[in-house]
């Protein structure tokens, strides 16, 4: 998309600053931490950064899909934790296989997306409102089957019996297996998921007609509709992508934790929204885009990894995250609008 914005022949310094400023900042951070934080510059550390942002990154790619059609999905955090609880429930309480758990979660994500889309498209509830309601609903719903307890092998159920199932090894492998890549046991499954999904969403949005049409809807829904685009269908699809990706994030979370933890997912929501929004600034796109979102997620991951390695207390991490975010974006947007 971005190559269409700037005429290659006439790129000025400002154009360069806009396009590559954020990437330069990212590289600068990496260099700084490599020097300042012992152990930062290693393949393991790199893989780990990817791993730490895999889940938020995948959620953020879902948000990106809704942002493209000029929507917004506040329910992703809750969908992810619902998938976390659901997969645990299916395996531990219902004693089903990993496959059943995964399929159940994906269906749940798709269904939530469908309902969100239906509310927004058909019932015309504003997107923030519909997905906020869905968020509350899911946060409550996921706790009802176990009466607010987290789900673990051998837990006792509300009726007094003991759950007989357990997280199957295949399921746990989603969180724990590592592929060899030059070094043995280097790349975790979740990183592969992130990379594959990011590339997939990027290709989808940039190079397929479906993505093109979704951008058209985001810019001028009526014009898109009069150009023959089935607007409602695409909007619903965007929310379903978001729901499914959020449930994938939840599955990976469950596989990593190995239990169904009670959590609201608020921080997942905020971090992935941050990643998706930072993506606006990457390569001067000034609009939602998959590549930017992935870079945005990495950016946050690198920042937190570096700060933690330098022993910065947790509250300075939020502060630095906010500060860098504001300053970096300020320059990107100020520059790109001054043209």
């Amino acid at each position, binding site marked *: 998309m971005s190559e269409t914005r700037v005429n290659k022949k006439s790129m000025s310094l400002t154009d360069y600053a806009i396009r590559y400023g954020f990437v330069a900042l990212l590289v600068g951070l990496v260099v700084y931490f490599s020097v300042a934080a012992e152990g930062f510059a290693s393949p393991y550390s790199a893989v780990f950064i990817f791993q730490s942002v895999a889940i938020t990154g995948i959620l953020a790619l879902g948000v990106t899909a809704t942002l493209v059609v000029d929507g917004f999905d506040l329910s992703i955090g809750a969908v992810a934790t619902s998938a976390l609880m659901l997969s645990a429930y299916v395996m531990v309480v219902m004693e089903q296989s990993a496959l059943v758990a995964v399929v159940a979660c994906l269906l749940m994500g798709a269904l939530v997306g469908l309902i969100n889309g239906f509310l927004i498209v058909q019932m015309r509830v504003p997107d923030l409102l519909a997905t906020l309601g869905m968020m509350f609903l899911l946060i409550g719903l996921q706790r009802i089957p176990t009466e607010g307890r987290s789900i673990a092998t051998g*837990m006792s159920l509300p009726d007094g019996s003991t759950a007989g199932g357990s997280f199957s090894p295949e399921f746990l492998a989603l969180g724990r297996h590592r592929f060899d890549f030059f070094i043995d046991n280097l790349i975790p499954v979740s990183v592969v998921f992130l990379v594959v999904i990011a590339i997939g969403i990027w290709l989808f949005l940039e190079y397929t007609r479906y993505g093109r049409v979704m951008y058209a809807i985001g810019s001028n829904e009526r014009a898109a509709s009069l150009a023959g685009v089935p607007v409602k269908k695409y909007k619903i699809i965007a929310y379903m992508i978001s729901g499914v990706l959020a449930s994938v994030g939840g599955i990976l979370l469950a596989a990593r934790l190995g239990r169904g933890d009670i959590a609201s997912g608020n921080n997942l929501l905020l971090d992935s929204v941050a990643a998706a929004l930072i993506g606006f600034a990457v390569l001067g796109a000034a609009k939602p885009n998959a590549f930017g979102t992935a870079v945005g997620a990495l950016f946050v991951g690198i920042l937190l990894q570096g700060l933690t390695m330098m022993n910065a207390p947790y509250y300075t991490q939020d502060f630095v995250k906010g500060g860098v975010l504001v300053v970096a974006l300020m320059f990107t947007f100020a520059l790109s609008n001054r043209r």
Partner: protein
Amino acid sequence: ADMPAPFDNPGEVKIALVRYLSTGDFFQAYLSGVERQSEALGVDLRVLDSRQDAALQADMVDQAIALGVDGIIVQHGLTESMQAAVQRAVDAGIKVVAFDVNVENPAVPQIEQSDRDLARLALEQAIADNGESWKAGYVYVPGIAPLDRRNETWVEFKERYPGIDEKAQFGTLDNPIANSNANQARSVLSANPDITVMFAPYDEFAKGVKIAVDEAGMSEQVSIYSADVSTSDIAAMREPNSAWKATAATNPAVVGEVSVRALAMMLAGENPGASVVVPPTLITQKDLLEKDIKNMEELSEKLPQFAHAPVAVPEWMPLP
């Protein structure tokens, strides 16, 4: 049996549980203990849940007063916001006990799970396992009362054993807590690959640290010591080669029962004492494996000191 008034007619007795925290296994288990003991007594229990809104919690005390309850259990909260509200309840002739929050009122007995003891038991085990000098990672988020109390013990231990070298302090309450702490612990371990002991005095922290240790392939080298326990913690400790060596815990359900019993004693005109301490139990990986303990129920069965606290048990008290 011969029940003292007002429990000769327990259906007429109304008590309220006013909660500050409710999300999570500990609080759910505490609630179940409260419910069980209330049922054993036959009293009418109202649960008022402020969902971590301290101001609302104070209002809920007033609400309980308006509902005409006979007794109130305050579960967690802030001293500053609860003190005046509890005073109003006491002035209204209502009996009050407080769990894990100091309401600075001589008429209100404190139910405590003694965070200092929890931390002490875990750290003593760490010393027993690893000697007096080691490189440590410490998980702590200031500003949370029980964690602050556990922190005091950690600070004491560091003074007492100068060989303990705190290489890194980290921790976050971002949810899911275990996942966020796993990320931080991973960073800490790659920056300090020589750490051998992780002190994570809250089981969600410990769970996160364990994930990080496993992912870093350091479970042979690192030992984790923590506080609190749940079924899934037991499973994590029992995993082959688990780095999670020991945790110190009180049974939250028992604490819930004790809270109700102490309140019942006051309603019957007895005095449970200014402070009712539920003693913690040390649970080691070895215990779990040797006694084949797989969940909380088996833990109660096989470690009796965990299942029951012989506190606040007058003769007439029906037990669940």
